[in-house]
């Protein structure tokens, strides 16, 4: 019997595979393709205190080995989310992680407080969305701001807090240490890398927002390097993500120091990716005689 269970700040996941915020909605659409009971956790699309309309279209563009997106955190707001999305996810035997976004500290706190009495296992605080002008990234690129927002959120949060870090910084370990100093329980990384594409026939940006966050297989080496760096800089558990499409990719992140992994863009071209990765990790463990997945976490030094 092999053990695939991992622990994030006291929350036990049946396996380390979860979804990357924004790529999986709140699970309803993908539940037609995958059994959500097979996932360690579902991480929801970012939710704010009120509905956000998001950015103008086009919001996405394909680039080599990945895509750019500038959705702009369109979301229904916490009221609808609590009435509709949480009850949906509660039907499944998986952990619920809610991604929280805001324009001001007060926005974040309002959502975090509303979620305090809900059956939510962890909160992921999005301080790294590159596509909204206010909030989001404004909190994620300055270590003092990272520490301050983390501390504020922690004061009000009833659930353990994951701080989601941006790769669009000079040294991500500085941000990781700032989040740790502010009291974060878990770190997740990376959010998308800011990129651009130009349509030469239209002589215009491919995305209405001009820039978009790059994701997909092409960002994986950068993400993996950052997860390794952060794992060696802080003592918090890490959720690794960035271009994970296969069990092999997921295992690389785990060996670099991630306790859990999130699957994002791969869902768009393979809606079965999450369960295939969970199965593939088990197969690897059986094949290589690994009794406990924790043996693999950070095993490559």
């Amino acid at each position: 019997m092999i053990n695939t269970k991992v622990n994030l700040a006291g929350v036990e996941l049946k396996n380390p595979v979860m979804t990357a915020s924004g790529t999986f909605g709140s699970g309803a659409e993908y539940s037609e393709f995958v059994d959500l009971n097979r996932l360690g956790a579902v991480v929801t699309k970012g939710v704010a205190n009120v509905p956000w309309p998001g950015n103008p279209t086009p919001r996405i563009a394909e680039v080599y080995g990945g895509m750019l997106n500038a959705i702009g955190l369109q979301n229904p707001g916490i009221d609808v989310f609590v009435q509709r999305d949480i009850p949906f996810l509660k039907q499944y035997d998986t952990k619920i992680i809610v991604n929280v976004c805001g324009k001001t500290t007060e926005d974040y706190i309002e959502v975090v407080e509303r979620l305090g009495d809900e059956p939510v296992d962890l909160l992921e605080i999005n301080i790294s969305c590159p596509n909204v002008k206010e909030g989001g990234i404004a909190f994620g690129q300055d270590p003092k701001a990272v520490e301050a927002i983390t501390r504020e959120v922690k004061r009000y949060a009833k659930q353990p807090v994951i701080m989601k870090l941006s790769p669009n910084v000079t040294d991500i370990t500085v941000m990781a240490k700032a989040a740790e100093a502010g009291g974060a329980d878990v770190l997740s990384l990376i959010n998308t890398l800011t990129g651009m594409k130009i349509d030469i026939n239209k002589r215009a940006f491919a995305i209405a927002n001009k820039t978009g966050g790059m994701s997909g297989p092409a960002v994986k080496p950068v993400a993996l390097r950052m997860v390794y760096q952060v794992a060696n800089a802080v003592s918090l558990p890490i959720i690794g993500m960035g271009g994970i499409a296969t069990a092999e990719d997921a295992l690389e992140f785990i060996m670099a120091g991630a306790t859990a992994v999130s699957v994002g863009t791969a869902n768009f071209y393979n809606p079965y990716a999450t369960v295939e990765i969970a199965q593939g990790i088990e197969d690897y463990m059986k094949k290589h005689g690994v009794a406990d997945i924790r043996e693999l976490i950070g095993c490559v030094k």
Partner: protein
Amino acid sequence: MGKIKMTAKVAGQQALTEDIFSMWIQADEIAAAAVPGQFISVYTKDAGKVLPRPISLCEVDKEQGRLRIVYRVVGAGTKEFSAYEAGDSIEIMGPLGNGFPLERAAGKRAFLIGGGIGIPPMLELAKQLDCEKTAVLGYRDVLFLDKEMEQYASVYVATEDGSAGTKGNVLDAIRKQGLEADVIYACGPTPMLRALKAYAEEKGMECWLSLEEKMACGIGACLACVCQSKDVDEHSHVHNKRVCKDGPVFLAQEVEL
């Protein structure tokens, strides 16, 4: 039955014009569930291309379990599809989207209006609509699917260069030929849809438009392909309906173009 992603087989392919191709795909499960106006996501075999190409269904042969897509080669992805031959595998997901509401034309006269690569979904619609049908097809220059459409509807053509039918666009053809109907079903470029929306409002006609937008997931999760809607949308409670899931077919008054 719901939507599925499957490895299907190409049953045959031919070029209709220099850059427009017609492909039949053996996909029993999807064909069994598909209705006119729906689309499929088609995935390339190039790992460097991560997003599916949404392509409308031109015909659905339920008896043989086949789908027909007619698409234009616009980039490297569709170029790859155009080289597929009978027997090749093709990765697809579907059927996606809502489709045209056929019942709205019962006992009425319908316009089926297609512009350019918006023409293909009109063919299956014409096959399934049981009413008086007038197809108005707009082209830049070279015609395609017009002869096939003649089996199911009275066909009028408009070309930008005047090489066939009325010189101009689909509305020029409608006005010059004095065509009339009660309900509009249309698919084509946004300027055409915008003009049809205004025309329908002026005439007090019911008008159903099939929209297009850049898509990623194709199933309503990623919120990439939204259009501005008059009413608050069911998903995010803003004014952004999802083209892939709430559409691609919308009542004209429902959307801002």
